[in-house]
């Protein structure tokens, strides 16, 4: 569960990015897509750059929830904690709710998962699609200022007074132009290499936000809404099988060995996943969970796939379970390395 941009290409959803221009989209895949699609290998992933008109859908996958009575967006799933961001425009209220200002006007928090309720994935068409005739923009020009709420044509804001003089207002309504930055224009070709993640376990912002969250005494200028009841763990828990009667349905020694071996494999996988800081919500074993890498047994063997949008993507079939687990772990570990959760110790 992570806030990300998605695109559908030839009927398959991929994580995507917009850029380097507003007419370009880049598709990303954790597993190698079929060769005929023309993805190129990159560090830890495969990628394909397209013109934006070549994808059939483009949307934001926004995990939204409710924190202390107000909507929030889930930026990242850290397992038993969620990294959330305040979506309102009231800095006082954000602080009152317990958020921490990580940047000017940006209020976020890493909070126990159970504090965030009503988590749903919102799918919003990416706004860019609705403004196909946008004039070109670049680092220097940026967007045209939108109209302020409640006014179709808001009066220009008063410019700051400098020593009694009112300077000319900045050109907020100037036509779009492109004026590359001297010496720092985007898209210049350079030989680049990936920055390795550091070995620092907690995010600085996360650690600080946690400290802030634990230390903060909420100052309520007005009563806060009733604290929501802690949510139950959204991740399905395995249902223990009822014990068999002592003299009935005893598995054969061979089947018992197989079951024991399976349990051992699954336990080893779970332990390794935990050691690799892979969130429990990132994978599902024995069931299909949307948004997760899943491993299930089928009549043909063991399938590992990415479940998204109610479909199975990047399906791989393995004859034996250990290979399936090994592959699943590899995909998840690659993602953990990419996001910096898994880093070598110095």
């Amino acid at each position, binding site marked *: 569960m992570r806030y990300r941009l998605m695109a559908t290409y030839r009927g398959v959803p991929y994580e995507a990015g917009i850029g380097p221009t507003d007419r370009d989209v880049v598709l990303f895949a954790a597993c190698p897509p079929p060769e005929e699609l023309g993805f190129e290998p990159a560090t830890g992933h495969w990628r394909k750059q397209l013109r934006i008109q070549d994808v059939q859908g483009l949307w934001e996958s926004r995990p939204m929830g409710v924190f202390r009575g107000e909507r929030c967006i889930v930026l990242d799933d850290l397992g038993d904690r969620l990294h959330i961001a305040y979506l309102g425009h009231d800095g006082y209220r954000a602080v009152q709710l317990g958020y921490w200002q990580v940047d000017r006007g940006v209020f976020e928090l890493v909070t126990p998962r159970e504090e965030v309720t009503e988590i749903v994935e919102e799918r919003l068409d990416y706004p860019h699609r609705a*403004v196909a005739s946008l004039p070109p923009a670049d680092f220097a020009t940026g967007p045209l200022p939108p109209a302020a709420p409640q006014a179709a044509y808001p009066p220009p804001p008063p410019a700051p007074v400098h020593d009694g003089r009112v300077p000319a207002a900045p050109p907020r309504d100037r036509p779009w132009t492109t004026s590359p930055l001297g010496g720092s224009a985007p898209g210049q070709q350079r030989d680049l290499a990936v920055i390795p993640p550091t070995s620092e376990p907690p995010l600085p912002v996360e650690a600080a936000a946690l400290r802030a969250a634990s230390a903060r005494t909420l100052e309520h200028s007005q009563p806060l809404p009733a604290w929501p009841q802690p949510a139950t763990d959204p991740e399905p828990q395995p249902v223990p099988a009822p014990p068999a009667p002592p003299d009935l349905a005893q598995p054969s020694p061979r089947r018992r060995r197989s079951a024991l071996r399976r349990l051992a494999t699954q336990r080893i996988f779970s332990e390794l996943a935990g050691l690799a800081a892979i969130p429990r919500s990132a994978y599902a074993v024995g069931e299909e969970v949307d948004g997760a890498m899943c491993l299930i047994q089928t009549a043909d063997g063991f399938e590992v796939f990415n479940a998204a949008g109610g479909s199975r993507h990047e399906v791989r079939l393995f004859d034996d379970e250990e290979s399936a687990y090994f592959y699943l772990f590899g995909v998840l570990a690659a993602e953990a390395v990419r996001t910096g959760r898994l880093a070598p110790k110095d």
Partner: protein
Amino acid sequence: MQKAIPPRLVEPYLTGRRAVIAGFVYRVQDSSFAGPAEYYDALDLGYEGSDFGPGLTELYVLRWNAVAAESYQVPYSPEMGGDWSGKPPFTGNGYTSSRSHVVAEFYLDPVPIPVGAEIYRISAAGTDFIARFDGQAWLRPVGAG
């Protein structure tokens, strides 16, 4: 567009652990200055809780091409017809509070970092390219430290 990256967020950005841009952002044409001190003054970096210091000697900025222009909102206060409120230096009039520079500000709810975004380090010695975002990771120039 560009925004100054708080020092404590530079490393999470560069290692891919922070994948969104949010908050007050500025057009490069309005907000290119000679050195860190001018950025500090012009972009209201001395807000409460800031880890920018007035004597900062270097500053990292994130620059990207604006897409989805409607995502960029002018943070007007209720008096100006908007719904933003916050402690000073927030002005609510669509500009930073600097008395030396006139800088229009925009507000961005969290968005994924666009492909091709770049990070620069600004110091008295000039502006250095640090890394470019390929959509999944930040790439540094080969041979860079």
